[in-house]
């Protein structure tokens, strides 16, 4: 299956939805910092993997798919939930990559330059997630 870009999301997303993502993202980053300062890095570190994007993505995808079907004259549909389930499948794969990001930070940060560690950890997150996603698609296609 081919990966491609579709910018129509920008038309469907309202300013309120952008603002809520910004506020939620900012709030959770702030809270993570405060928790790490107050309770130490072992507790605070848990929140580095907090699902900051995933819940709002699920609700937005469901809403946009439902609106699309309603415009087509279909009032009752579970298409929105099924589309959100596909997104959740991707997030489950991405969370494995997220664990690998944490592993790279844990093992390499004490010995490498911080900027390089964050770059390598990000690349590892994407590579692991993409390869698992691709392998799964290949397996399903056979």
């Amino acid at each position, binding site marked *: 299956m081919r990966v491609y870009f579709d910018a129509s999301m920008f038309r469907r997303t309202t300013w309120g939805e952008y603002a809520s993502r910004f506020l939620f993202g900012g709030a959770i*980053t702030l809270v993570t910092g405060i928790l790490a300062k107050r309770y130490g890095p*072992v507790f605070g570190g848990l929140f*580095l*993997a907090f699902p900051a994007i*995933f819940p709002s*993505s699920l609700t937005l995808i469901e809403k946009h798919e439902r609106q699309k079907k309603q415009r087509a004259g279909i009032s009752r549909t579970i298409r929105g939930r099924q589309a959100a389930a596909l997104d959740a499948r991707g997030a489950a794969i*991405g969370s494995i990559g997220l664990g690998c990001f944490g592993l790279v930070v844990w093992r390499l940060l004490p010995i490498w330059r911080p900027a390089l560690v964050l770059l390598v950890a990000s690349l590892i997150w994407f590579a692991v997630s993409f390869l698992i996603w691709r392998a799964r698609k290949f397996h399903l296609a056979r």
Partner: protein
Amino acid sequence: MLQYLFRFVVGGVIVSAFAAVGGIVKPKSFAGLFGAAPSVALATLGLTIHASGKQFAAAEGRSMIAGALAFCLFAYLARFLLARGRFGAATVSIAGLGIWLVAAIGAWLLVLK
């Protein structure tokens, strides 16, 4: 106070950027990968290294693995429940955040502490 404001803005920008990328790539299962992007980690770690040092941030990285496993549990349960169509995304999201919190704090109590 200014440091908190800076952290808030950096977090908001990075989380929004990853969410936007996840919104424009297709197919949906691929876009889902960006729902689990290390957005909070990237927003937080640079500031943490600057303020508290590399060892402190490395210890956070270790705990992040447990947080990611809790995330995986949340996402798998969400996929399972949404695919059956019985629960809406809002219900699944709120319940899932609770599950993530319980699983992550459980891992902290049992393994990390």
